[in-house]
């Protein structure tokens, strides 16, 4: 027969200070763990959610990133437009966008220095091929003008990124004329401008990349292979979604340091919980013996004390989750090693993150509780009663 749960709850409320201090310690550990998991969840969401399943990204053979030197020759664009499976606009033109990427240095608006930001140069066709990108303020750039449009995150994180401001890119200033929102995709870390204007600035003979829109997901897959196999092109096609998903490696430094921090803190908290539980067991040794005399088995005593420890850590988890709630949705940035520039993302306390945090706390409680509970269950009744 199991010891009533009520017994454990009453005991936790009786030893208030020990309960509060131990669970607060666990709460701090849980908070740290959630913080790191939420960062990674946000980063993953930014990259995994990027790209359209209908879009095929084309790079030079051997290149792994849009920033790679050398790229797609201008002459190859007409060839791609005529490939079977390419979607067409109202005028019957194949939807293919030649694009260029530049990295510029911008000052952050919180005064913490400068960082690299990616500027994508494209045509209105390129914008139309990304229906998830919506204009939220101002207007799109006019082709042939030195105008740029910034993402919402760039707008909020950097100085000089308001409508009416101008930025020095290449050979002169470009005016900010609008702000777009991508709903958290990788384009959230970008600034967009007109490619033909850029070409005249930099005298670039090629595009960095090209984007082809397919009529349906099946032809997107076929297009990808067709581009890679076409002997005239010497290019490599990949699904846009796959390309972005690979860039989640940006999170690896955070993941490594974060996991290390969480594990070390968890070990520390385990020992603290163990200490509290040993004291709880020592304090109640006669009580435990009495329970045994009444007829509770060793295993139910063991279960009861492990449960109490888990309860303690669950309390900590609840406090930890509440402590982290205000940070949910906070925007931050890290280096994307593929583009050498900032990847903007927001902290996301997804249900998975919260569940993992609870599981993490339960594991801490189990580790902290098993030894003391074992100790409690193994004590000889007579010795304990005489204490």
């Amino acid at each position, binding site marked *: 027969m199991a010891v009533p749960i009520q017994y454990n709850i009453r005991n936790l409320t009786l030893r208030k200070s020990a309960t509060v201090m131990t669970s607060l310690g666990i709460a701090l550990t849980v908070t740290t763990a959630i913080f790191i998991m939420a960062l990674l969840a946000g980063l993953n969401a930014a990259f995994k959610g990027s790209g359209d399943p209908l879009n095929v990204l084309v790079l030079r053979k*051997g290149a792994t*990133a849009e920033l790679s030197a*050398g790229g797609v020759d201008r002459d190859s664009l007409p060839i791609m437009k005529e490939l079977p499976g390419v979607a067409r606009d109202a005028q019957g033109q194949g939807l293919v966008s030649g694009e260029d990427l530049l990295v510029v*240095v911008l000052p952050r608006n919180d005064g913490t220095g400068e960082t690299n930001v990616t500027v994508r140069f494209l045509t209105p066709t390129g914008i139309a091929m990304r229906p998830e990108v919506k204009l939220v303020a101002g207007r799109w750039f006019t082709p042939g003008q030195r105008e740029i449009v910034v993402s919402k995150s760039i707008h909020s994180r950097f100085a000089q990124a308001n409508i009416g401001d101008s930025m020095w890119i290449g050979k002169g200033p470009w005016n900010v004329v609008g702000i777009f929102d991508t709903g958290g995709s990788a384009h959230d870390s970008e600034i967009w401008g007109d490619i033909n204007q850029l070409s005249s600035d930099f005298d670039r003979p090629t595009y960095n990349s090209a984007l082809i829109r397919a009529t349906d997901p099946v032809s997107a897959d076929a297009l990808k292979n067709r581009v890679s196999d076409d002997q005239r092109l010497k290019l490599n096609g990949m699904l846009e979604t796959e390309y972005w998903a690979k860039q989640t490696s940006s999170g690896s*430094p955070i993941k*490594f340091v974060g996991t290390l921090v969480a594990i*070390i803190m968890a070990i520390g*908290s385990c*020992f603290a919980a163990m200490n509290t539980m040993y004291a709880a067991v020592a304090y109640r040794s006669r009580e435990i013996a009495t329970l045994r005399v009444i007829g509770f088995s060793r295993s139910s005593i063991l279960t009861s004390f492990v449960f109490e420890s888990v309860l303690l850590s669950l309390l900590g988890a609840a406090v930890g989750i509440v402590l982290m709630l205000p940070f949910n949705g906070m925007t931050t940035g890290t280096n994307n090693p593929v583009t050498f520039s900032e990847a903007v993302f927001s902290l996301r306390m997804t249900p998975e993150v919260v569940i993992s945090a609870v599981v993490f706390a339960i594991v801490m409680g189990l580790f902290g509780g098993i030894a003391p509970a074992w100790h409690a269950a193994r004590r000889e009744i007579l010795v304990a009663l005489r204490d």
Partner: protein
Amino acid sequence: MTLVSFVRKNAFRNKRRSILTLLSIGFSLLLLTVMMTIWRAFFLSDGSAESAQRLIVRHKVSLAQFLPISDRERIRSIPGVKQVVNESWFGGQYKDDKPENFFAQFGTDPQELFLVMTDFHIPPDQLEAWQKDRAGCVADAELAAKHGWKIGDRIPIKGTIFPLNLELTLRGIYTAPQATETLYFNNTYLDEGYARIKGLVGFFGVLADSPTAVPQVAKDIDAAFRNTDRPTKSESEKAFNLDWIAMLGNVKAFILSICAAVVFATLLVSANTMAMSIRERTREVALLKTLGFTRGAVLGLFMSEAVTLASVGGLLGAVGASGIIFLMSHAPGIGLMMGGVKPNVATVVVAILVGATVGALSSFVPAYNASRGNIVDGLRHIG
């Protein structure tokens, strides 16, 4: 029995509790030491004397923009500049794209690299062999050891940024004051292998006459290129490295918040232990007072007990931290950034001091309550 041994015996009388407390505080302070060490290496240390004498000159727009190699002679002519070397980031893959096989590769000028990197050492015969081989390269000693490279080995690097694969031969192994995870090859290979960047380089490493000359030299270089189509940004090697760290995100806030969480957790653990330990000894406290110990003496005894425990925890943490830091500096993917992070005496001392302070703070309330307790009630207490 002296008071010192009284404190020591009491601190460790419940062995299990003391050990658990020590471990708990130790792990927390371990993390604190690691964080402080990283902080110190990133933001406080000035690096080696040689590093303080160097600058990096790059295109003002960004590192991804190239500079013409001809700028090198113009930089050399600027007063205060001793040596200049060009470097270009190749960013290729060795074997595969796994993070453990990642290291930096730079195309550079073998004639002058080691004149600028004065704190790198290479046997003269190896340097000479490299200078004679256009497809030769030199690697950091630790990097060579990690991949098991020997002089004469072939090292193929697959180009990802450039449409060019390098077939390099290891001609020399150099040692640096801190592991660099870097391979240098002859830039002629890149220059001739990919026509589009002929005559262009990534950035320049500059050796100034003295560390004090660095700010002025940086200003003069930038002034010289201000009105060209390739304005430069010159900064000390240290500032350049900090830019990379800053790109990871708000590292300072991250470290500070973890430190705060850790110190607070330590405080809780220590306070909890002392409260438990003091409650158990209510009768003993009363007895001590009957023997003539003043309230102040009792307070002092209990607080010293906590301070002893927490300081030992701090020491344990600092020792453990050295191990973790060693592991981190050899971890795949982040080793490049952690190369300069080494444990030092100051952080160990700080960890112990933090431990001691936390011990004193956490034990004050329970110890004070115990010292104020009524003797008669205390003697009657059934614990």
